[in-house]
Structure formats: structure tokens, C-alpha cells
């Protein structure tokens, strides 16, 4: 791995971790477990389009582990790993289905996958299938937050592309 690539990925991982932790400090959007803006998905998505699948996966894993350590809540790592992995795989799939002008569409499906993954982890960990009543509001929120973070990622990709190519 070249020094340039290491530095670049490190910056992305740092930005992702900071965004993730700032978001933990924001008040909950709704008294429903798991509903949040999902700002960290912006970085995953931007990393995927700017640097490719391998680097994006590295940035994601670093963020999940560091985020869990700094937030002092290792339980949250299980939920965020399940959600993050589902979102990442969805982003990989969506990259084959959308153009670069439609990155925000990927983001919507990432948010939905994030919710599904998190919910699956929560149901398994608490052994409470009844939690699934929270899935529809989570998905509805995911459409809205996914659209917002999607446009953020799209702008980030179009601005950063010329800079990173140098």
C-alpha cells in the first residue's frame, strides 16, 4: 500500500469516525431505537465511488471499531457492524445499477439495508421478534434520511473527484 493511499484512506476513516461520534451526541430523532440520520454512510458511499470497494471496506471497518471504542459502548458495535455491513453490500450492488448522477438512489437503499441489518441484529440479540413492529417506521425514516445523506455524498463525490485525481 502506497503512503499516499494510506494517508488518503486514513483521512476518510478519521472523518467517518468523527461524523459517527458527533451523530451519537445528537438528540434522538424519535423514541424509536435505531432511527438516526446515518451521516456516516456519506463517507462509506463517497469512499466507494472515489476509491473503490476495498478501500471503502477498510474505511468502514475502521470507523465501526474506532467509533465503538471512543463511544465507550461496545454493544453498539454489534448493531452498527450489522447495519454497516448490510449498507456496504447494498452500495456495492447498487453501483452496478445506478449512474454517477444517481448516487443518492444508492444511499436510500443503503439506509433501508442499514435499518434491516440493525433490526435483524436487535431481534437476534434480544431474542424478541416483537421488535419488528419498529421496522416500518425505521424504513420510512430511512427513505428520508437516505435521500438527504445521498445528496451530500453525491456532492462530495463530484467535488472531491478532481482533487483526488491529482
Amino acid at each position, binding site marked *: 500500500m502506497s503512503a499516499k493511499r494510506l494517508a488518503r484512506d486514513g483521512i476518510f476513516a478519521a472523518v467517518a469516525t468523527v461524523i459517527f461520534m458527533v451523530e451519537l451526541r445528537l438528540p434522538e430523532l424519535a*423514541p424509536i431505537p435505531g432511527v438516526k440520520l446515518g451521516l456516516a454512510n456519506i463517507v462509506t458511499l463517497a469512499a466507494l465511488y472515489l476509491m473503490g470497494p476495498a478501500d471503502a471496506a477498510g474505511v468502514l471497518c475502521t470507523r465501526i471499531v474506532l467509533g465503538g471504542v471512543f463511544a465507550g459502548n461496545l454493544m*453498539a458495535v454489534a448493531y452498527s457492524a450489522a447495519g454497516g455491513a448490510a449498507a456496504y453490500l447494498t452500495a456495492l450492488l447498487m453501483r452496478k445499477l445506478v449512474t454517477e448522477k444517481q448516487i443518492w438512489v444508492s444511499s436510500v437503499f443503503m439506509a433501508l439495508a442499514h435499518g434491516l441489518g440493525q433490526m435483524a441484529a436487535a431481534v437476534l440479540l434480544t431474542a424478541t421478534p416483537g*421488535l419488528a413492529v419498529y421496522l*416500518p*417506521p425505521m424504513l*420510512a425514516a430511512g*427513505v428520508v434520511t437516505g435521500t438527504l445523506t445521498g445528496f451530500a455524498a453525491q456532492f462530495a463525490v463530484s467535488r472531491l473527484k478532481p482533487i483526488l485525481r491529482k
Partner: protein
Amino acid sequence: MAKTRTWILIILAILVLSLAASVYLLTRRPDGRVARIYVDGELIREIDLDALAAPERFTVATDRGENVVLAEPGRIRVESADCPDQVCVRAGWLSDSATPIVCLPHRLVIELAGETGLDAEVG
């Protein structure tokens, strides 16, 4: 590559469906007012809220943390918790909704159900 228009329609369809399902699920009424408290999916306590004469406060402690639960005649809530997100506390009173109160960090779930196990045996 599908047109943006097609994607917007698909996304709107998902939004409408999930909103409709949310309204249906979150406005359901429980069959009765027996609060069931689960930790790790295991029923640890059952309180018939309608039969409760005086408020009762108790602590559910696990090795992951503590939730202070307050049961009053007809309603129940998590009063305080040492979890980081406080979602369970902000969920407020549970009195006539089939939607459970959840504390994910402590794997605690409180939901309302119909009859108690005891009533079902007698009846």
C-alpha cells in the same frame, strides 16, 4: 441503467408502504393491560396494571446496566436508565399501545399483553 424517474417511483412506493404499515402497527391496541418485562427475551416479571393499587418502582439490573421501571395503575414506564441512548426513557408511558418499550443496550423489552399466565390458568 434505470431512469431517475423510475427510481423515484420505486422509492416513493417504499415510503408510502412503510408509512401505511407504521400507522397500522403503531396505533394497534393491546388485548389487555398486563405488562410483561423481558430481559434477553426471557420473561422476568408480569404486572397486571389494572389490578395495581399503588405505584410500584423497581430496578431491573443486568450485567449490562440498570433500568428503573415505574408501574402505576394503568400505565408503566422506564423512569431512568444508565444506558447511553436513553431511548427507553424517552419512549415515556406505555398504557394503551401494543408497541413495546425497548432498551437495546440492556436487551430489555416491556410490552403490554392480554391476560396474565395466572388468569389464563384459572379462567
